[in-house]
């Protein structure tokens, strides 16, 4: 913990519900990759972390990416490391998946599929929602 935030002491031992919302496709912009970096770091803070994939964010989890031709790292593989970081709550919004002609079988990791109302409720019960 830093010593720069004198006003912010007493946070040790606090467990908050953190939700990271992914709504951007990979590769076209850096948000998906840098967003994943935040999530990996958050694992060190022992918080109650969940990740949501909605809208084009669903594309981040597609199987069979081959990024050699665009000369960027295939970070889709990194989503499979999340389990080892104890980040196990991955949610996909059904409407977003349907709108893109995708099913769970197309995804690189196991996820929980929620309808929009379930997603709304899950979001509303968080302490911190981070989106990028």
């Amino acid at each position, binding site marked *: *913990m*830093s010593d*720069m*935030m004198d*006003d*912010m002491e*007493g*946070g040790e031992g*606090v467990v*908050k519900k*953190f939700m990271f919302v992914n709504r951007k496709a990979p590769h076209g912009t*850096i*948000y998906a990759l*840098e967003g994943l*970096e*935040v999530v990996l*770091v*958050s694992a*060190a*803070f022992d*918080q109650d972390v969940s990740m949501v994939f909605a809208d084009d964010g669903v594309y981040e989890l597609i199987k069979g990416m081959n990024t050699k031709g665009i000369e960027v790292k295939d970070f889709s593989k990194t989503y499979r490391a999340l389990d080892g970081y104890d980040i196990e709550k991955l949610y996909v919004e059904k409407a977003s998946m349907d709108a893109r002609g995708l099913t769970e079988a197309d995804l690189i990791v196991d996820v929980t599929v929620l309808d929009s109302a379930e997603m709304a409720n899950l979001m509303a019960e968080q*302490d*911190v*929602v*981070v*989106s*990028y």
Partner: protein
Amino acid sequence: MKIGIMVSEGPYNHQASDTAYLFARTAIEKGHKVPRVFFYHDGVNNSTKLTQPPQDDRNVVNRWSKLAEEHGVDLVVCIAAGMRRGITDDILAPGFRISGLGQLVEAGIQCDRLVTFGD
């Protein structure tokens, strides 16, 4: 109330940094605390003292520096995002510091609210 802020876009290209600044300033005027602003993605570009906007335009970088000086706002630039974009200690404007992504998570834990401004 403690309100943390994340800024995800660079200055001038997108309104995010302006909105974040006006929000932060107003929150402080209303008696809230803004302990930390975390600059991520292209938001790290808000921190460079090399910025030289025309004189008839607002100076986004100086505005942040002034907020830090007058109200003790901790302006944190993500090291990983900063390194990718060439942001180093020697070009930081006053009040900014480079640190890790953990500082964002920490702000989320320790502030009552965390508000994101981006594209």
